[in-house]
């Protein structure tokens, strides 16, 4: 046990902050991830995440906190994706790619401008890959507010969002206002991107959104259940990853592995382990492997 949880893990202030912010981020991102994947928007969520890099890099230049920067830039990109009408999936992917490219260009600019600021060394890496153990007590309030807001919005609009994701025509017939639902979904997605970016960095924040949701969708067919499973998996991966990152400081004699690497790897191991185990189980039972 003492090998698994190195001493002082739960007593350390930075670790507590990381666990709280990471936990909120994991739950919000995983829950938003399920309807996002059902709508086939894995690419869009990835694009918002990467574009939010520009926001994270801009934040110190204009003196706002990083979360605000992440969310605002993701919101701008998401708004653009919604505003330009496209005909089909390939066109939507193309537009997503174009917006992504433009956003990353901005990110390159803000990051290069930021490097010239005094005391900003390491800011690049912090924005891109996160610096979860450097979060302070003053990061908790914005994170809790954003997380709470996203969860309240999601719970209020959960059924229309899921219905619109599963079958837009059916949703329209049942009186769901698709534009409003889409806007709420987008708002929750950007909040999730921002929170995830605080934890694992802007460039990797997709991992918290896509991976647990993909695992949950593969494991269970019921949407309600998959939300719970996704949240559980997200929490397990994030906290497990934080623990490994903390422990790795001791294992590697002070040359710790990056926390975001540990979290992403933990989430992916959960994904491949569970989905692989499931298909193996189905195979052994002689049933048809789901395609």
């Amino acid at each position, binding site marked *: 046990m003492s090998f698994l949880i190195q001493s002082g893990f739960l007593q350390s202030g930075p670790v507590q902050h990381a666990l709280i912010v990471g936990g909120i981020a994991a739950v919000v991102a995983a829950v938003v991830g399920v309807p996002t*994947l059902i709508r086939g928007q894995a690419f869009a969520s990835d694009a918002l995440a990467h574009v939010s890099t520009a926001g994270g890099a801009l934040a110190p230049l204009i003196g706002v906190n990083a979360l605000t920067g992440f969310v605002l830039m993701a919101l701008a990109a998401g708004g653009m994706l919604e505003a330009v009408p496209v005909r089909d999936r390939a066109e939507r992917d193309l537009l997503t790619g174009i917006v992504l*490219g433009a956003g990353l260009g901005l990110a390159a600019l803000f990051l290069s401008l930021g490097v010239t600021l005094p005391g900003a060394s390491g800011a690049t890496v912090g924005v891109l890959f996160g610096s979860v153990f450097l979060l302070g007590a003053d990061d908790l309030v914005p994170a809790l507010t954003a997380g709470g807001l996203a969860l309240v919005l999601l719970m209020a609009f959960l059924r229309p969002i899921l219905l619109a994701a599963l079958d837009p025509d059916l949703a329209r017939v049942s009186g769901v206002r698709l534009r409003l639902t889409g806007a709420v979904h987008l708002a929750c997605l950007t909040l999730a991107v921002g929170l995830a970016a605080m934890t694992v960095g802007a460039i990797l924040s*997709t991992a918290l959104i896509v*991976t647990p949701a993909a695992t949950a969708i593969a494991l269970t067919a019921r949407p309600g259940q998959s939300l719970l499973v996704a949240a559980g998996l997200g929490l397990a991966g994030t906290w497990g990853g934080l623990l490994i990152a903390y422990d790795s400081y001791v294992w590697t004699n002070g040359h710790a*592995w990056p926390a975001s690497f540990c979290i992403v790897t933990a989430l992916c191991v959960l994904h491949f382990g569970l989905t692989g185990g499931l298909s193996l189980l189905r195979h052994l039972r002689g049933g048809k492997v789901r395609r």
Partner: protein
Amino acid sequence: MIAGIFTSSWIAGSIVAAMAGVVGFFVVLRGASFAAHALPLCAFPALAAAHLFGLDPLGTALAFALAGAATISAIGQGTRRDIASAIWLVLMLALGELFLSRMHSYARAVYGLLFGQLLGVTPADLHLIAGVGILAALLILLTFRPLLLSTLAPELAVAAGVPPRLVEFLFLALLALASSAALPAVGALLCFSLMVGPASAARHLFDRPTAALAASVALSLLTVWGALLLSSATGWPASLFVGAGGLALYLAPRARSFRSLVRA
């Protein structure tokens, strides 16, 4: 000295642009934007690992590129591929982060590999870019007709004896290869931007496939040259102008059709 750096970045940029124009033409027509975004990221951990462990950069990049192309093409089309691409992409980024975190100039290396240093291309980079970039573009041109046929309709390709899955794998492998070459110049993230922007505009300009392909290359070259000029004039990163150029090229034909829509 400054003139020397400027020349090698100018040559590197032109080769990357021409190659991205050729590859991007099929990326856009095949609707492979997400794969085209995910695959270049294979080169990110590959080059980081090569740097860290003293491996041959080209060989490592090739191995990662082939693994990525095999993974994504094995999954087929649609939502399942999107999810697989997303998971593959974060894994590659996280792996690259791990490798780079073992190195000294961490931040600099991260920035360079992700966003590129078009103005900082060294003569050594140039050999890699020229060799691999020209090879990838030539292979795409050689397989032009089978690629076009399987893009039009996979079933037509099957009936003509062209296996679409093989074509798909070949295409993704070439895409990954091409982006490994472009990486030092425009970075893992923006290599993609250069592929889709010019090609998306080019397909509106000409009805003939070969003419549209040529236009894609030409627009891509103009984008890079413009970006290099603006970058050396402002001191801002060339990646910014490449991304903005892609957006402008995508929106320009749409603005025209929007106007005609309003007039109608």
